[in-house]
């Protein structure tokens, strides 16, 4: 981006921040970090009030804005030990790694479906977090963040949070231990029921769904009446209602167990367990895309489309010239591109800004 383009982006950012709904609970206890070259060029900053923070964003328009999940007595203190740790939100970062600048976007739907599962099955189901104690945020680029602001989790330390990461990622999951043999005669294969919580219940539910959809999951010769008999057994915790050897039943369901964890939780970034990490400020703009890291209404999460719902509201038309080949994308529910190097096009501000910030185009 040249100076002119940076100025253009700054003006868009500044205009947006004037009215943006940025609500950070206990803002005075948070550490902030800002970046223009890297995602975080400077950190250990703090703000006393929401207005003070807004003023900073409007005047300085950093490309990347992050805050700590942690609460501190002295958020701008250095080194970290001097900050006086008071607790931290529990944050999950779902991210996708893909080849090239644009590779991740076709996988965003898959990450979103992981986010929905993580939210509903794990966070609200297993962990019992209430809707009012959490927010779901589009990361502004390749994934989603879930911030849990439930008092119960606030005092958990890194290792304890790591346990939660292991839990959702299925590290150490041994579904074979869900099963046991009864001491009755004839012996029965006892297993989880769909009414149970956690992985056990999910495994039973997913098995029922899978065998209904594709009976060959368990046996190629399973007829419909036998199938329902088998399913009825699972509902009662009796997995024996089939002529298949018990060991084979367990073995054939291994693939189902592998689908249960949420694999796109980003453990590299470690934001869940590393209490010193910073996370993008909800409703701030992501400097690599110009997308708003939008707080999403949970009821609309499944329909959320960043290429429509995370765009800043600026209808001005901006002409750009592409500096490289760019694949087809869908903005505002319409196909845009693909483009070849040297192509010239004109779009509304957020779309042009997207290509400029990705260094795929220059202003004309």
């Amino acid at each position, binding site marked *: 981006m040249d100076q002119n383009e940076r100025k253009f982006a700054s003006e868009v950012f500044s205009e947006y921040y004037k009215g943006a709904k940025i609500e950070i609970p206990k803002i005075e206890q948070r550490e902030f970090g800002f970046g223009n070259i890297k995602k975080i060029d400077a950190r250990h900053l703090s703000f006393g009030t929401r207005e003070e923070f807004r003023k900073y964003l409007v005047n300085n328009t950093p490309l990347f804005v992050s805050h700590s999940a942690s609460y501190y007595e002295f958020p701008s203190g250095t080194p970290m030990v001097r900050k006086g740790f008071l607790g931290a939100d529990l944050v999950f970062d779902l991210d996708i790694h893909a080849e090239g600048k644009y590779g991740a976007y076709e996988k965003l739907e898959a990450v979103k479906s992981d986010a929905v599962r993580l939210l509903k099955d794990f966070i609200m*189901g*297993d*962990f*019992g*977090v209430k809707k009012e104690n959490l927010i779901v945020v589009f990361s502004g680029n390749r994934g989603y963040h879930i911030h849990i602001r439930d008092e*119960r*989790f606030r*005092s*958990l*330390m890194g*290792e*304890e949070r*790591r*346990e*939660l990461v*292991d*839990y959702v990622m*299925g*590290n*150490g*999951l*041994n579904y074979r*231990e869900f099963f046991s043999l009864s001491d009755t005669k004839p012996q029965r294969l006892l297993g989880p029921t769909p009414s*149970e*919580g*956690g*992985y*056990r*219940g999910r495994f039973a539910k997913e098995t029922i769904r899978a065998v209904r959809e594709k009976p060959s999951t368990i046996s190629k010769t399973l007829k419909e009446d036998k199938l329902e008999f088998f399913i009825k057994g699972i509902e009662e915790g009796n997995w024996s209602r089939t002529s298949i050897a018990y060991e084979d039943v367990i073995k054939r369901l291994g693939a189902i167990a592998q689908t249960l964890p949420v694999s796109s939780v980003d*453990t*590299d970034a470690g934001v869940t367990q590393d209490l010193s990490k910073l996370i993008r400020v909800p409703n701030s703009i992501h400097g690599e895309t110009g997308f708003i890291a939008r707080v999403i209404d949970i009821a609309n999460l499944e329909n959320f489309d960043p290429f429509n719902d995370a765009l800043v509201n600026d209808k001005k038309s901006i002409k750009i010239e592409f500096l490289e080949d760019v694949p087809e994308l869908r903005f505002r529910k319409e196909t845009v591109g693909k483009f070849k190097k040297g192509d010239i096009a004109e779009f509304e501000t957020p779309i042009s800004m997207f290509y400029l910030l990705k260094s795929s185009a220059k202003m004309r």
Partner: protein
Amino acid sequence: MEELDFATAFPFSEGAKKYISNSLINEKVIEIAIERIKRGMAGEIRTTALFSENDKIEWIASFATARMILGFLKNSNITNRFAVTESKIARSMLDKIDEKTVERVGEIFGITTINDGKNIIIDMCAFLKNSPRSIDYKLINRKLTGGRMEIKASEKRRLIEEAIRKRIEIIPLVKDPPQEIKAAASRIDALVPKSSTTVVIKVDNHPPCIAKLLEGAKNHINLNHQARFYLATYLTGINVSEDDITKIYSDLPDFNDRITRYQIGQIKKKGYTTPSCATVMTYGLCCAVCKIGSPLNWHKLSKDRKEEIINGSK
């Protein structure tokens, strides 16, 4: 249980304070405190029979005095050993007392449970904060619904034991105690064997998970069973001698030379090999994305790749 007996058995409780508030640090109490620290260093899990009210009060005071000595000494090795032993002794008490009293001790640490007649139910955060980091206590192997989970009565006691250990380990710094405390601290310090390990703990010599365990041992962290087993199989796998492994383990708060040597011997005799990275992950000990399959493959990596992994794990 009578108030004084409760305070004697669990001297970290709030109630214990009222028995020692007016008590002076006298020669006898200091001697008991020194014995108590020595008992901690040796890992002797034995209780002391106390009969008179005065003996009990002195015993409670000796706990506070021992903490004062340790707070001045600032030796994490001794402090952690003391904490492990005291928590194990408290655990032996927990195994003997009635459920209601166990509940009372649990409440000190926020470990409250509901007994629905069939199961003991605990909040998952209370469980996470106080469970030992071992495979048996991994959340994934539990029935977890709505933030609550089932535990066994013995597990509840184990959680309390862990909470006691953690509480005792945190000792505030005592800068300028009375002369008698300083003298007692010198006597304890003189008993500390000066250990020196021969394996160089240089981060890029070992995978990040092993480096973390070696640093943990050096800092007298009470590593769990899986961590000790993994570390021993790894060190055996890279041909570190039994003596050197024992030296590394001698920094652990509950070190026992005989048991350590026996366990290393068993690892060699039974041919236990270093677990794969997948297994290490199930132990909850993986802390980086190395993608090397086996921790032993670390030594086949280029220097640049090692650095890349180490930087990524920070």
